[in-house]
């Protein structure tokens, strides 16, 4: 085994390894007879769904019973409140995570990057931006694939602004973030995050398209156009995938994603539980409350250089909100951390000139800023 001789700057190599979140893959469709949908398998699946529902419905009562009866903690005590919170939230969030990650894993088998590209190629800008932001949420994507994807899109005739809408929405609106927001703050906050995330992706992509920045794309990207295609084999694979393989893809997604984030979730909920029981309300109100106008830009400024996955950042969000920080400020912080990161900038540097990267980050940051102010003002 030898390595390709072409040199690559060490910094880029390191960051692309770091940026490789890639848990989202379409899983192995090893087509075998074992994958057939049999009545037994259907029955097992139905039983699993029913069990899931029963466990989920009874978590609140069970965690209370466990805390106050089995462990004998007294109701109304700080320790009791913390323990009950932990015992309730941990299984709840993990259950939600398994269900949603499985569902998204199955849905993703319908949206390969190649199919998404075909859907987006030649679209007009406004419609294209909306479609790209929506597709960004369901197409398998990871930051280490950002460059091949960018080139694949642009050379196939997807407008630059539309490509950016996709690149913004794909990391920002992800299933782990939505599940954790739903589990810990309710559906309203999750819906807000989904809606505003899409809006930022659409608006920022559209604006970038207006600016006509094509000349700031590295020229070698377009040189690729003239060369012949060699990758016919990789396309069209997903179309004829049998359902057993799609379900197996969901199971693989659960193994990969939940297997990676469960520890963060556990730690986050433990921190949240501590805050829930012990930390006085409104500790953060003076710093990150809605009356401090500078808190939103500060949150974005702090968020951009930080690099964390959704599972790692939501515990922090929980802590901030719990201590009285304003929702808009916290959403802005979370979006800045997930959507904009230095590793991503370094990866994209291979295809974009610095000025375009700066414009890209600037416009997305401005969109996030507006979202922060909007919610602080509205709520």
């Amino acid at each position, binding site marked *: 085994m030898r*390595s*390709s001789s072409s040199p690559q700057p060490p910094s880029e190599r390191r960051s*692309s*390894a770091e940026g490789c979140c890639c848990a989202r*893959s379409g899983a192995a469709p090893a087509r075998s007879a074992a994958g057939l949908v049999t009545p037994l398998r259907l029955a097992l699946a139905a039983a699993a769904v029913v069990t899931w529902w029963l466990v989920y419905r009874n978590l609140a009562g069970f965690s209370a019973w466990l805390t106050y009866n089995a462990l004998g903690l007294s109701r109304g005590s700080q320790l009791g409140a913390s323990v009950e919170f932990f015992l309730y939230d941990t299984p709840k969030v993990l259950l939600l995570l398994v269900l949603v990650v499985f569902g998204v894993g199955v849905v993703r088998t319908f949206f390969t*990057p190649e199919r998404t590209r075909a859907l987006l190629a030649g679209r007009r800008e406004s419609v294209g931006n909306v479609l790209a932001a929506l597709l960004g949420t369901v197409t398998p994507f990871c930051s280490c*694939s950002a*460059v091949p994807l960018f080139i694949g899109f642009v050379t196939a005739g997807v407008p630059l602004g539309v490509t950016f809408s996709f690149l913004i929405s794909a990391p920002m609106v992800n299933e782990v973030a939505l599940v954790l927001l739903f589990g810990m703050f309710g559906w309203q906050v999750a819906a807000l995050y989904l809606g505003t995330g899409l809006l930022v992706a659409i608006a920022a992509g559209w604006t970038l398209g207006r600016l006509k920045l094509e000349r700031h794309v590295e020229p070698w990207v377009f040189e690729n156009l003239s060369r012949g295609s060699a990758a016919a084999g*990789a396309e069209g694979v997903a179309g004829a995938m049998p359902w057993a393989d799609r379900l197996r893809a969901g199971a693989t997604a659960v193994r990969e994603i939940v297997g990676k984030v469960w520890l963060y979730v556990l730690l986050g909920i433990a921190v949240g539980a501590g805050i829930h029981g012990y930390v006085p309300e409104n500790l953060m109100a003076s710093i990150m409350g809605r009356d401090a106008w500078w808190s939103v830009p500060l949150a974005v400024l702090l968020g951009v250089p930080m690099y964390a996955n959704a599972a790692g950042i939501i515990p922090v969000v929980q802590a901030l909100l719990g201590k009285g920080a304003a929702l808009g400020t916290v959403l802005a912080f979370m979006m800045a951390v997930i959507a904009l990161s230095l590793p991503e900038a370094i990866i994209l540097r291979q295809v974009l000139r610095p000025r375009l990267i700066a414009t890209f980050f600037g416009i997305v940051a401005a969109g996030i800023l507006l979202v922060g102010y909007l919610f602080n003002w509205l709520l």
Partner: protein
Amino acid sequence: MKKIQILGTGCAKCSNLAAVADEAAKALGVPYELTKVTEMRQIMSFRVMSTPALVVDGVVKLSGRVPSLDEAKQLIG
């Protein structure tokens, strides 16, 4: 001589794919040469849209994920 190429900028999945491909080729018992392609322009000349990707004798067999050993044997063999 089979020419196996692994396209990828060096993330964890790329090394996983290289390891699986290597094992599969050994199991098949055919003479082969395994190369890692890490330079982006070279990767893009294969027109893949996600990495890692497996190329056998110049044809892209798979991209964006790591196959099982059995699947890798099928793809290479």
